C-alpha cells in the first residue's frame, strides 16, 4: 500500500488525471462565482462543502479500487437497506427521501446508492461474457430495478431514472448488443403508458404538463404551477443573451425571479450572468471531464476499473444533462442537481467521491502498452 503522499504525487504526475482535476476545480469555481452573485451566504457555505468533499475525494484515492470493488455487493446491499429504512422514516414534505439526524444533518440514501450501484454493477460485469446474450441482461436489470423501484416510490422520479440510464451506459461499455438494448428500450417506451396509472397523481400531472408543453398546448395553469419555475428559468437564461447581464441578472434573481435558484436551477444563474458564452464554457468543461474519463476507461486493462469509470462518469454527465435540459426548458422538471455547481453538500460529496474513484483508477490502473495495442491491432487485421 502506497502512502497518501505517494498517491497524491502520482495523481499530479498522471497525464489523464490532470483534466479531471482541472475541470472539477473550474466547475467548483463556477459554482462559487454563481452563488456569490445569487446567494452570497450560500457561497460561503459551499466553499466549506467543497473543502470537505475534496477531502473525501482524496480519501477515495487511498484504497485500491479492487478493494472497493470487493465491497461492491455489500455497499449495494447496504444502500438497499437504507432505501428501505428511509421508507419507514417520517416523511419530509410528503416524500421519503431523507433521514434527518440531529443538528438538521440530512442523509439521502439515494445518493449513497448511486455510488454503490455503479460499483456493484461494475463488479458484476467484470468477468462476464454473457452480456452479449439476452439472458445475461437479466441480473443487471434486476440489480437496477431494485433501487429504481425504491427511489420511484420515495417518490423521486428524476433520480430513479438515472439508474437505467447509467445501466445503459455501462452495458454499452461492457459490450451488450445494441439490438438487445434497443429492443428493451422499445419495450420500456411501450410500457410507460401502462405504468402511467400507477404513478402518483403529481407525477402523472407532471408528465401531462411536459407533454402539453412540448406540444405547445400548455395552458395558464401550467405556467403558474408546475412550469412556473422552469418558465422563470428560461426567462433568466434567455434574457442573459450572448454575453450575459452580469450583476444585474443576479439582482433579478435575488428579487425573486427564480426562487431557490442556488440549487437545481443554478444553470439559469450562469445563463443569466454570463450568457451563452458562460453556458458553453460549462458544457465544454463537462465534456472535457467526460472525455478525460473515457480516456482513462479506454486505456484501462482491468474490466472492473474500466466499467467503474464509465459508470461513475456517465452518472455525473447524465445528471448534468438532465439538469441543464430542465433549466433550459428542454426536459421535465426533476429534482436533480447540477454536478459540482449546484449548492448542496450531499450531492457534491457523492460527485467528489465518484471523481475520487475515477482518479483512483487513473493512478493505479495497468494500461495497455503501446506495443500491446499495436499487437492487438495487428491481430485483428
Amino acid at each position, binding site marked *: 500500500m502506497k502512502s497518501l503522499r505517494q498517491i497524491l504525487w502520482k495523481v499530479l504526475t498522471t497525464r489523464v488525471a490532470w483534466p479531471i482535476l482541472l475541470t472539477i476545480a473550474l466547475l467548483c469555481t463556477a459554482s462559487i462565482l454563481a452563488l456569490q452573485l445569487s446567494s452570497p451566504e450560500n457561497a460561503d457555505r459551499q466553499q466549506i462543502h467543497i473543502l470537505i468533499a475534496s477531502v473525501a475525494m482524496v480519501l477515495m484515492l487511498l484504497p485500491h479500487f479492487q478493494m472497493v470493488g470487493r465491497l461492491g455487493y455489500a455497499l449495494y446491499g447496504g444502500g438497499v437497506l437504507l432505501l428501505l429504512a428511509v421508507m419507514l422514516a417520517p416523511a419530509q414534505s410528503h416524500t421519503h427521501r431523507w433521514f434527518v439526524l440531529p443538528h438538521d444533518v440530512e442523509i439521502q440514501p439515494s445518493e449513497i446508492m448511486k455510488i454503490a450501484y455503479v460499483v456493484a454493477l461494475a463488479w458484476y460485469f467484470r468477468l462476464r461474457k454473457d452480456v452479449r446474450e439476452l439472458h445475461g441482461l437479466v441480473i443487471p436489470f434486476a440489480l437496477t430495478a431494485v433501487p429504481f423501484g425504491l427511489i420511484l416510490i420515495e417518490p423521486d422520479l428524476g433520480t430513479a431514472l438515472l439508474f437505467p440510464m447509467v445501466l445503459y451506459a455501462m452495458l454499452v461499455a461492457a459490450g451488450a448488443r445494441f439490438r438487445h438494448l434497443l429492443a428493451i428500450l422499445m419495450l420500456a417506451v411501450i410500457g410507460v403508458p401502462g405504468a402511467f396509472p400507477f404513478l402518483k397523481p403529481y407525477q402523472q400531472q407532471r408528465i401531462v404538463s411536459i407533454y402539453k408543453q412540448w406540444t405547445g398546448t400548455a395552458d395558464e395553469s401550467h405556467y403558474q404551477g408546475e412550469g412556473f419555475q422552469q418558465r422563470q428559468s428560461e426567462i433568466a437564461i*434567455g434574457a442573459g443573451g450572448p454575453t450575459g447581464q452580469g450583476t444585474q441578472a443576479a439582482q*433579478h434573481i435575488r428579487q425573486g425571479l427564480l426562487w431557490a435558484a442556488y440549487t437545481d436551477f443554478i444553470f439559469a444563474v450562469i445563463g443569466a450572468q454570463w450568457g*451563452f458564452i458562460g453556458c458553453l464554457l460549462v458544457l465544454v468543461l463537462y*465534456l472535457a471531464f467526460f472525455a478525460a474519463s473515457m480516456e482513462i476507461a479506454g486505456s484501462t486493462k482491468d474490466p472492473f476499473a474500466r466499467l467503474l469509470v464509465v459508470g461513475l462518469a456517465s452518472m455525473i454527465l447524465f445528471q448534468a444533462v438532465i439538469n441543464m435540459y430542465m433549466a433550459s426548458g428542454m426536459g421535465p422538471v426533476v429534482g436533480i442537481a447540477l454536478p459540482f455547481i449546484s449548492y448542496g453538500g450531499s450531492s457534491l460529496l457523492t460527485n467528489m467521491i465518484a471523481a475520487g474513484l475515477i482518479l483512483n483508477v487513473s493512478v493505479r490502473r495497468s494500461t495497455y502498452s503501446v506495443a500491446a495495442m499495436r499487437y492487438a491491432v495487428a491481430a485483428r487485421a
Partner: protein
Amino acid sequence: MLNRRLVVLFCVIVAGFLALALRLGHMQVSQADEWRSELDTFVHRASLIETSRGTIYDRQGVAIARDVPCYDLAIDYRAIAMDDAWIKALAQKRLAAEKVTGRDARARRLAQLQDQIADQIEAEPAAIAQVCRLSTEDVLARYNEIREKIATLKQNLWSHPYVKGSGDDDEQPTVNTTMVLKEEVSPHTIVPNIPDNVSFYFKRNIDQYPGLTIIDSRRREYRFNDVACQVIGTLRSVDAEALKRNRFAMPAITGTADGSIQGGNLQGYLPGDLMGGSGIEKLEEDTLRGARGVKVKDIASDATSPDAERRLDPVVGNNVQLTLDIGLQADIQNNIRQKHLLKGEDGKDHFAALVVMSLDGQVLTLWSSETYDLNQIDALRGSLIKDAYRRPLTNRALQGYTPGSTVKPLVASGALTENVITPATTIVCNGYLFPGKPNIFRCAIYEETHGAATHGPLQVVDALAESCNIFFYTVGRDMGMDRMLKWFDLYGLGRDSGFELPEQNGSIPDPRAQRDADAALMEATQMGIGQGPVTVTPIQMAAAYATLLQGGQPVRPHILAKDTGDLPPRRFSLPPDVVSIVRQGMERVVASPEGTAYKPFKGMKLQVAGKTGSATAWGPVYDDNGNPVWDTTRPEKNADGSPKIGPDGQPIYHQATAEGTHAWFVGYAPANNPQYVVVAMMEFGGYGGSWAAPMAREAFLQLERHSYLPALDVPPPDPQAPPNAIGSAQ
C-alpha cells in the same frame, strides 16, 4: 484506448450536449430580445393606483354627490385563491408564536396549522355574510368578481403592445404571463363602507379570519339623501356590455424611449368597478369617471435611484355642474310633504311631479314625489324595482300624461296667429258642444250638482281664465286636424324636448297618417282642450310655455350647466299682440275671481299667471295598500283563447282600470315679467286649480325664499345666512 464502444457512448453524450448548445444559442442569441421583454414584465412590477369619481355640483356649487373616504372589508387575493405558499407562510408565523420544539413536532404542528388556516378561510364567506348581514351567495359572487378582475388584469399584461402577437382586439390572448401582479397579493374589497362596529369586530378578531383586512377606501356619498334621487341617479357594478365597450387595458410600462408609461386604457372598466347606473351618474359617466394611475417598481434598481419607481398619477374624474338648485328642490319637496299638498280630492296621497325652469331652459327643480335614499340604494334596489305601484325609480316629470286644459293657451296662440279667431270672437257656452247631446263634449262646470252652470257668451281671454271647454272645442274644430297638429308640433308637445335625461316623448298623432275626415275632426275638437290622442310630459309643458312666453323662441330644457345641445329646430314667430292676449288670459286665471286658479294664489303678493288643467285619463287601479285590483270580469287569455292560469292555480285577470283626472297647473312669475315657469302635476289628483296649483304656489314661495324672485310673500333672506342656504336638507 480507442475503444469503439466508449466512442459511441461519448458521441451520444456529445449529441445531447450539441442539442443543448443549439437550444441555448437559439434562446440566448436569436431570441434574447423576446426573453428580455419577458424579463421586463417581471422586473417592472406594475400596480394600480385607484382614482376617485368627479363630484356632482348643483348650480350654487353645492356638492350633491361626491367620493368620501370610508372603510372597506377586504380580502387578500391569496385567500380567495387558497395559495398554498401563502397559507404555509401564515402557518409558519403562527408556529413561531407557539414555541414548539423538535423538528418532527414542528412539522406536524405546521401541517395542523395549515389545515386550520385553510378551514378558517373556507368558513370566511359565511362569517362575512353573517356579520355584515348579507347572503353568502352575495359574498361568493363578490369573490368571483375579484377573480374575474385578476384574470382581466393578467390578460391585459400579456397583451401589451410590445409583446408579439397582439394588436388584434378581437383575439383574446390565450396564454397568460407568469408575472405575479401586485393585485394577486393584495386585498380586494368584499363589503364596501362597513360601519365602525363591523370594522372593529374584524380588527379585533383578525386572527380568526386569515386574509381579511380593513382598508381605506372611497364610497359615493349623496349628501341630500333622497332629494332629486331620480335625477342624480346611482352607481352599480359594471355590466358585461360596458366591460366590452370600454375595457381596462394596462399601458406599456417598458420599452418606451424615455421610460414613460404610455397607452393602455386606464379609464376602462375592470370587473367589479362601479359605473353610473341611472340619472346624471349614468349620463355623465364619461366625465365623472376618473382614470386609474399606474405605479411601476423596478425591482432590479436600487431603491433610492430615480428609476426604482415610476408612476403615472391617477386622474380624478371631472366634476359635473347642474342647473338644478338642490336646496330649492329640497325645500319644495319638504314643504309640499309637510303641508300635505299631495292629498288629492279623494283625501289620499297621490303621486306628483313638479318642474321649475327658467325661461331659457335651465331646470332648477325636477321633482317626482316618490323618492328613495340614494345612500341606501344597494339595499333598496330590489324593492324599488318591484314597486309597480309607487314606481319610485320613475321620474314622473319625464313621463307622458294627458295634458288637459293646459294646452288651451297654446291652442289659443295658434288660433289667434292663424286668424281662426280674433280677440273679439265670441262663442256661446251652453254647457255642451253638440245640441241635444248634453253628456258628451261638455264644459267642466256643466254639472247637475252645480245647477248645470254655463259660461254663456265669452271671448278668448275669459275662455282661458274660466277654462271654457266649449270655446276650445269650437276652436279645435275650426282649426282642423292639420293645423292643430302643426301647432302641437311647434310647441314640442309629444316631441323629444332635447332634455339630457331619458324621457318619455309623450305622443301626438302622426300628421302624415291617413285618417277618416270625421274622426279627424273629432280628434281635433278634443285636442282643443288637451284630450284625445295626446300625452305630454311636464318638462315638455314647461318648455312649451317658455316658448309661448318668448313669442316662439324655442327652448331646450337642460340640467347640465354646460349646455351644449342644439335647440329644437322649431323656431316660429308669434305676433306680440297674440302673446299679450294669451298672457292676459293666463293672468286672469289667477287674478280674476272667476279664474280657475284664483283661490290657491289668493293673497299672494307675487303676480303669478298660468293655466290649470284637469285631464281625464284612464289608469290602473290599486287598493289602499298599493296592491293591484284585479278585474275579475276580464280574465287574461292564452293564444288559444283558454284562460291563463297563474302558478297558484288561480286564473289571471287584467288589472282593473278606472277613469280619473290628472291635476295640472302650469304657471309663471312674475306675471308682468316672466322669469320662471313652474309645472305641477298630480296623478289622478282631481281639478288642477284645487290640487296642482297649491303645489305650484309652494314652488313660487320657495323661489322667493331662495331669492330667485323678489321676496314679496316670505320674510326677506337673512343677510347672515349663506346665500341660498340648503334649508331643511342637511
